[in-house]
Structure formats: structure tokens, C-alpha cells
């Protein structure tokens, strides 16, 4: 991916970031989203086919992707373009701030694109309307087919500038696409951009596949496949499509995840009715047993520094969440609330563990600190599980299933995301039913 995508960041202007007035507090939720005007990118007259409608449309498409990203955060309120008074090209040079203030905009995004010699150059600026000043000015050069990714990168830069957090728009989500009746469900690995675009199917649906997870560089995916009816952990290279079995032990290997350095896979291995946690070094293929208990130990997830592991065990009698050192020592139960706890997954920031909780017939997605304190339930539903963190640790994506009637009518499985404040719960539209989402890290770091 990286090879075909060169980003050239040119700092067009020295940007003064010291005293800006706009700031979006991401911990607030969406009580009062920031009004932002995203002016369509105008086409530089020096472009090839300057008058071509397609070229003009590209500017509008890019700004609409940016706008959609902002709206999806719940933190921004992109203003209606009909109200814009200044032409995009003039605004990009120097906005008349009083005009933008009139339509309540507090931030303004302007931009320009130059399409020349099969190269697309996009420059954009972010303006603080209240303070009458420029906040960022950046330019990217890429191939025209990469316009969508540039739109996401621009979104990330603006989000970062306004919230002080790293962005998450230039990312993808891998998930399991589901079709057909419940008793004969067809499942395929699918991948899409974070905003639901560019869906691609990575397997054909001939065998059951579950729980795909990215490696830290987003090139590999580890997942469970029932190829030849042998449930085993596999590795898939997204670019080449090459699949290989990694957990080929006599028994079942499942619940795989990468270590934060990408060198190991941690997974469950079930044999003779007992599931324990193992790691496999991908280079040396050395296998190490991490837990040894007669109960079920599964759903392991590393802390971002790789020093700890959180996992799910029923050693106390029912499903609870535990942590331990990465060598398996120092096992500590951290969930003590009323109910069952599953699918612990460590935040990329290291402070929180997200989980699924089952209590009195309802399913919750929640977070707690890694010592088990400060449990917060974010959303309640009939069935939902398997949270996965956005790379900036601000959102969780998970899947939700609806209650089925007789013969399974009304059953759906969909992806949802929620901010860890508990706000901005929204469905991520997928072409088919979907489950087991896993969020990539930022594609361009």
C-alpha cells in the first residue's frame, strides 16, 4: 500500500499554532458540536482539463468526504453549503471572516486542487474564524485515484489540530460479512474504509471464518478459519492474498491477536475440553504456553507496551476478566461487578480495557481501567459484543445482533461505533450483515 502511495507534505506556510481560540473538547460528547464550514475545493486553472466537469466534481467529492468524517464524530456540525457567501477560490486566499461569522461558522476549511500530468496536488487550509487567522496549511501530492485517502488524511490533520488528539479517519475496518439464513450462514472476510467505502471481500465464503484482527502495520490479518473443517488460526497477507495456517496443533486454535510489536500471535488452544492461552513467535515458530488452568482461558489481548495481557477466564466459575504479566505470572481478576464479562481488549492508550458485559439477559459494551476500577457501561442492547478500539482510543466499534423471530425473521448483525464518553452511537453501514470488526491503525503514520 505504502509503495503505491507517496504523500508529499509541503509546508506551504509557516503556521502559527501558538494562540488559537478554537479548541474542541473531545471529552464533552456531542452536546454542542462545533460549527464548521467546509468550502468545496476549487480547481486550479492550471490543471489539465480545467473545464472538465469531472475535475470540478473531484473538489466537491473531497470536501464532502471531509464533511462526512466531521459529522460522524458528533463533535462538529458541518454547515450547509448553500449558506456560504464567499467563493471557494477567494476564501482559500483570504477569507472574509465576518461573512463566515455571520453564518455561525467557527472554523473554516478551504482548499484547492491541481490535476496535472497524472498527479493530484491538494492543498488545504484551516481557518479560525473567531480569531481571524490561519491554523494549518498543508499540501499533498498523490495519484488521482488516491483522492479519498487524501480526504481522510486532511480530515485527520484538521481533527488533530482542533481536538489535540490523533485522528482515525485514514483507517480501515476488517470484519466478517454475513449472508444467508442463520442456520446456513455464509461468512467472508471483508475490509472497508472507516467510512464504509471501498468494501472488498478477502475470502470466498467456502469456509467459516471468524474474528479477523490486523497486525500493527495493517498488512497482515490473523483470524480463525474452518478450512477443511479444521478450526485453526490463520494469517492472511492482504496485498498478496496468501493465507497460511499458524496454529496447526491437534485441537482447535482460536481467538488470535497480534502482539503490539507484530512478532507474535497470542491465541487460545483448546484440547480435550480445556482452553489455554499460547503465543507463537511468527519468525521462529516457537510456541509458548502462557496460562495453565483447567478452566476456559480465552480472548487474550496485549497491553500496548506488550508487558501485560488481559484475558477472559471462567476459573472463578463464570466468565470474568483477568490481567497478567506477558509471561503468565501475576494473574489478577479485575472484573467484580454483577454479571459476566468477556472480550477484554486493551486500549491503544494503555489506560482502559473495553469489554462485553452480560447482565440479566442484556449485553453491554463498557470500559474499565486496567486495574478494574472505574467501570462504565456505554451501551445496552439485546446482543452486542467484540469491541475494537479506534487507533486514537476514543471510539469503539463492535457488532450488534437483533432478536430473531420464529425461523430467524428479523435477525440482523450490524457494526456500530460509540465514543467512550457514551455519546455518538451510530451504525457503520455495510453492504451485508457484519460482525467481528477490527479497526486498523492509521494507514499513514
Amino acid at each position: 500500500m505504502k509503495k503505491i502511495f507517496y504523500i508529499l507534505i509541503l509546508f506551504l506556510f509557516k503556521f502559527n499554532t501558538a494562540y488559537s481560540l478554537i479548541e474542541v473538547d473531545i471529552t464533552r460528547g456531542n452536546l454542542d458540536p462545533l460549527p464548521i464550514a467546509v468550502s468545496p475545493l476549487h480547481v486550479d486553472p492550471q490543471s489539465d482539463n480545467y473545464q472538465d466537469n469531472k475535475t470540478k466534481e473531484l473538489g466537491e467529492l473531497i470536501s464532502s468526504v471531509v464533511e462526512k468524517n466531521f459529522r460522524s464524530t458528533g463533535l462538529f456540525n458541518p454547515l450547509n453549503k448553500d449558506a456560504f457567501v464567499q467563493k471557494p477560490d477567494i476564501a482559500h486566499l483570504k477569507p472574509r471572516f465576518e461573512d463566515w461569522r455571520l453564518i455561525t461558522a467557527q472554523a473554516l476549511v478551504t482548499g484547492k486542487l491541481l490535476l496535472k500530468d497524472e498527479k493530484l496536488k491538494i492543498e488545504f487550509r484551516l481557518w479560525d474564524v473567531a480569531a481571524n487567522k490561519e491554523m494549518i496549511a498543508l499540501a499533498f501530492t498523490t495519484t488521482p485515484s488516491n483522492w479519498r485517502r487524501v480526504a481522510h488524511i486532511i480530515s485527520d490533520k484538521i481533527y488533530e489540530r482542533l481536538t489535540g488528539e490523533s485522528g482515525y479517519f485514514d483507517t480501515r475496518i476488517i470484519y466478517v460479512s454475513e449472508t444467508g439464513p442463520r442456520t446456513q450462514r455464509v461468512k467472508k472476510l471483508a475490509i472497508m474504509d472507516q467510512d464504509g467505502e471501498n468494501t472488498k471481500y478477502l475470502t470466498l465464503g467456502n469456509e467459516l471464518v471468524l474474528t479477523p484482527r490486523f497486525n500493527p502495520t495493517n498488512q497482515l490479518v490473523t483470524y480463525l478459519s474452518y478450512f477443511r473443517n479444521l478450526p485453526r488460526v490463520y494469517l492472511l497477507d492482504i496485498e498478496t492474498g496468501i493465507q497460511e495456517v499458524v496454529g496447526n496443533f491437534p485441537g482447535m486454535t482460536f481467538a488470535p491477536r497480534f502482539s503490539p510489536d507484530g512478532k507474535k500471535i497470542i491465541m487460545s488452544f483448546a484440547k480435550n475440553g480445556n482452553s489455554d492461552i499460547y503465543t507463537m513467535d511468527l519468525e521462529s515458530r516457537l510456541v509458548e504456553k502462557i496460562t495453565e488452568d483447567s478452566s476456559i482461558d480465552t480472548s487474550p489481548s496485549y497491553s500496548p507496551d506488550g508487558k501485560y495481557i488481559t484475558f477472559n477466564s471462567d476459573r472463578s466459575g463464570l466468565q470474568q476478566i483477568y490481567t497478567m504479566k506477558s509471561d503468565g505470572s501475576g494473574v489478577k481478576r479485575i472484573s467484580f461487578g454483577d454479571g459476566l464479562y468477556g472480550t477484554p481488549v486493551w486500549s491503544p492508550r494503555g489506560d482502559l480495557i473495553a469489554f462485553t458485559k452480560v447482565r440479566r439477559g442484556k449485553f453491554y459494551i463498557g470500559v474499565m481501567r486496567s486495574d478494574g476500577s472505574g467501570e462504565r457501561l456505554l451501551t445496552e442492547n439485546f446482543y452486542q459484543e467484540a469491541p475494537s478500539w479506534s487507533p486514537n482510543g476514543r471510539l469503539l466499534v463492535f457488532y450488534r445482533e437483533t432478536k430473531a423471530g420464529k425461523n430467524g425473521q428479523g435477525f440482523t448483525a450490524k457494526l456500530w461505533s460509540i465514543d467512550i464518553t457514551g455519546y455518538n452511537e451510530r451504525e457503520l453501514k455495510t453492504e451485508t450483515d457484519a460482525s467481528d470488526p477490527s479497526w486498523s491503525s492509521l494507514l499513514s503514520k
Partner: protein
Amino acid sequence: MKFNKKITNLLIILISTFALSACSTAKKSGTVGSDVYSGTDTVEYLASGVKDRVFFATNKSGLTTASRDTLRKQASWMRKNKKINVVLEGHGDERGTREYNLALAEKRANAARDYLLTYGISGKRISVISYGKEKPVNSASTPLSWSQNRRSVTVKTK
């Protein structure tokens, strides 16, 4: 649009309110006694009088008296039909997390396997596979359906 630290306090209040409301809206639905399926609606037969499956309680892998009876009949059928090998397919219901269900269903199928072994069936004739919650026999979201889906099914391989 400038925010100060007071917002953080407000946020904490908001979050706790949300968490509380989330808790208070959870409906009570206590489980009623044993929830092991005892009917025959989904059951198939390996031979006359030999049921192909046993059922389990929620989150459990223990065999009931009825399950042991079924497995003893399977064992005696296997002793009579020495060329037959079987695979035990373990399953869970939709009310658990996927990965835990995979482990639990593996445990259920192995509970059935262990019982067959104690009745003299060679381990070489029995393989085990877990399908977790992936292959329900009844696709409704009802306690009856869930009880029919928590099962270990003995399937002939040859």
C-alpha cells in the same frame, strides 16, 4: 468556543448519569430452574432408539442424567458397529460472546467424548469439533431455541 476544566466535572456527572440509567433500564429475567432441553423436536436418531444429541444448561458443560443415558446408548451402538467412527460437534447458543462459546462448545463435545471413552469406545474412533454459536439448529431468539442449540451432536463420519 473555549472550554475550561469545569467541563471535565460536568462530564463525569454526565457519564455517571448515563451509566446509572443504563443499569436501571436492564430488565430482570432470572433463569428458571434447569434450562436443559428435554424434548425431542430437533433430535435425530443414529439407529433405532439411539438419539444423536445431548443438551446442556446455560454456560455449563456438565452431562445430565438424560444425557448420560443417551451417550450409553450411543456407546453400545458403536460397540456393535465397530467400523463406524463419529465426530462430536459441540455448540452453544447466541447468548454468549463468540470466543467463549467456541471454548465452551469444545468443552461440551469433550464431555460427551469422555463419557463415551469410559464406556469402552476407543478415542481413535471419536473426533471433536466446536462450532461455538455458529451453527444454530433453531434460529429463533427464544429460551426454547437457545436450549435446543446448546448441544453436542454425534455424527457418523463413515
